């Protein structure tokens, strides 16, 4: 229950934050940094250097595909969307759900069987595939902690206290490969 409450607060925080951001963008007052805290459970929030990324990409559409005043560029999108105005939501969150595999999301996806975009990634997937896709092709840092630093809970999830390599583990036994 508490976890759910926490999750809801996280989502609300996200929404509030991104709606603010949307207002900023329409006012042509782009944020210099953006705090992204979708993975706040295991990682500290990322202070995304928005202005630096604006300087190095050609257009907003590189990240905000058909939004933020730039029309669609991907030719697979333009097959349908060549005359479509840039859509108003700027925040990834507005289309990409933070819980893409919850029962509600799964069923709503399947109910609308005629919808074209049935394979839309969730928020986390959209972020990582967008960011990491570029980071890999452009030779930017790609380690998990190059972008987000792990918190204590994250360290315990990854069993970071274990020594590398081949630290002997007292508890549990097993764990070797066959």
């Amino acid at each position, binding site marked *: 229950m508490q976890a759910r409450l926490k999750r809801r607060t996280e989502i609300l925080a996200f929404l509030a934050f991104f709606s603010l951001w949307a207002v900023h963008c329409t006012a042509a007052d782009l944020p210099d940094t953006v705090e992204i805290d979708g*993975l706040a459970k295991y990682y500290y929030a990322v202070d995304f250097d928005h202005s630096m990324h604006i300087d190095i990409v050609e257009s907003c559409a590189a990240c905000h595909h058909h939004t933020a005043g730039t029309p669609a560029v991907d030719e*697979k999108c333009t097959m349908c969307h060549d005359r479509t105005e840039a859509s108003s939501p700027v925040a990834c969150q507005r289309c990409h759900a933070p819980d*893409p*595999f*919850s*029962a509600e999301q*799964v069923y709503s*996806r*399947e109910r609308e069987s005629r919808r074209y975009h*049935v*394979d839309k*990634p*969730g928020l*986390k*997937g959209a972020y*990582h*595939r967008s960011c*990491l896709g570029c980071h890999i092709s452009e030779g930017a840092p*790609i380690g*998990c*902690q190059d972008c987000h630093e792990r918190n204590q809970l994250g360290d315990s*999830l*990854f*069993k*970071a*206290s*274990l020594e*590398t*390599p*081949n*630290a*002997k*583990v007292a*508890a*549990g*036994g*097993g*764990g*070797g*490969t*066959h």
Partner: protein
Amino acid sequence: MGKISRRKFLAAGVAGAVAGSIGGARSAWAAPKLQGYPDGMGVLVDLTRCIGCRTCEAACNAEHNLPAPQEPFDDLSVLEKESHNGAKRRTDESAYTVVNRYEIPGSDTPVFRKMQCNHCNEPSCLTSCFVNAYTKTGEGAVIYDPEVCVGCRMCMVACPFYVPAYSYSSALNPLIVKCNFCYDNRLVHGQPPACVEACPQEAMVFGHREQLLAIGRERIRYQPDKYVDHIYGEKEVGGTAWMYLSGVPFEQVGFDTTLQKEPIISNVKGFLGMVPMVLAIWPALFTGFHMLAKKRERNAAADCQDDKKGESR
């Protein structure tokens, strides 16, 4: 609407039986085609999206309170670990899922493959288990009851994917351990498995199996140059709940591409169906033969004695 008369009913029954014994004999003994539960859930793993970060392994370990691994989950050197015979890491008693790294000939970028139980539509682990410790649930999970297991390890032999592992570290009560699709703690509550939820890349899609097949086909159709035109698990061994998309030939990333399309049970179902018949008919049949033979012997012996009597007369 005429009522079916008794005579007609019997005649139809006899005709049906005759037709069945002539034409339908093959289909009567052949395994019925099961397509899994219609509402069964599944996961589509897209290898082109996996970056080998091992977050799924860490999430699985935490979800099931598994023993600590030998190396921390952020140690990516284990992805290349091979045993003395060149085999990659496998699932074991402390890891229900593992990710391995494969170097692809002629390509700079490695491919990572996550493996876990594929949750077959017709699981051979289940059919091999003589104490019925396995269950294929309506949600699509193949789960396992350690209370019932006697530790015979037949399922380990039967599994075409070499997934069930054994708790060799336990001297007194060794059991089978394997991925259970997070059945009790997540699936029945409408939540995706821990690994799926944890994956930063969303390399895995969770949904109804039918929907996943549609998504898989759509991805292949949309980017035919990116994907091999095959969804591994759609047909293999009768279909699995967990399926894979790949950008490189499946055999290059550790998949057995020689597996049959029919469920493993089909290989023996016809034969096993005959066993009760053999047990019921053969004793009577051979007793009959035996008695006939004995009778002939007795008759022959009697004739012989009659002849002797005749000669002595």
